[in-house]
């Protein structure tokens, strides 16, 4: 199984921390909390990967604004990830397709991960946090 994935040229992603983001911007603080956790870990020199899954993919959509009450959005943080050396941005393929989205709708270049590759991805990180 793993052999074939590697054979298809799939880059094996590994790191210290995988943060899984499953909530959309606004409406709850899940997304922001998850991103903050990733930034703290990166600030302390951990290698951090992000996996956008479920409604979490909406965080990557282009054209976002602040909330109705002037709350800061999360797109500024997404834009800033590179400054914290968080460059492994992964997107669950099913989450994108089922929302009628493609990688062209997103703010940043990402790597799309097929469902079958997810267990391996989780396995390659010492710590996995779910938000």
């Amino acid at each position: 199984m793993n052999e074939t994935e590697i054979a298809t040229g799939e880059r094996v992603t590994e790191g210290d921390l995988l943060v899984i983001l499953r909530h959309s911007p606004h409406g709850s603080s899940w997304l922001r909390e998850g991103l903050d956790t990733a930034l703290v870990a990166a600030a302390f020199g951990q290698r951090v990967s992000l996996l956008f899954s479920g409604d979490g993919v909406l965080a990557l959509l282009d054209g976002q604004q602040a909330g109705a009450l002037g709350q800061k959005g999360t797109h500024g943080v997404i834009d800033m990830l590179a400054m914290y050396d968080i460059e492994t941005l992964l997107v669950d393929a099913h989450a994108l397709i089922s929302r009628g989205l493609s990688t062209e709708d997103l703010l940043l270049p990402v790597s799309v991960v097929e469902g079958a590759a997810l267990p391996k991805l989780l396995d390659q990180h010492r710590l996995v946090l779910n938000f």
Partner: protein
Amino acid sequence: MASSEIYRYLPVLDQEVALDPEGFLVDMADWSPAVAEALAAEEGRILTAEHWEVIQVLRDFYERYEVAPAMRPLVKAVGLALGAEKGKSLHLMRLFPDSPAKVGARLAGLPKPANCL
């Protein structure tokens, strides 16, 4: 984090600038170069051209990302804006001893960086 609690006032020219308990501006709109100089003077620092260029990098960072940077991204931002020679923690430690991210954010009129201990 930014605090809205007014702890004391710093006189700058004909202005009374409200500061929070840690000495950060309560209202970011109060910032001006004269305020930065008064904040620096409080700590016995004199701002040179090298300080000012880092303060500008900090203000640009906040304007773009709406967050004050921790040390690591500050080093990176300074490196991108001012060249690799200055994008080193040693350079920033020399300019802003103790804690460059925190001291720099205060002088630049930004909130205290969240991921900075």
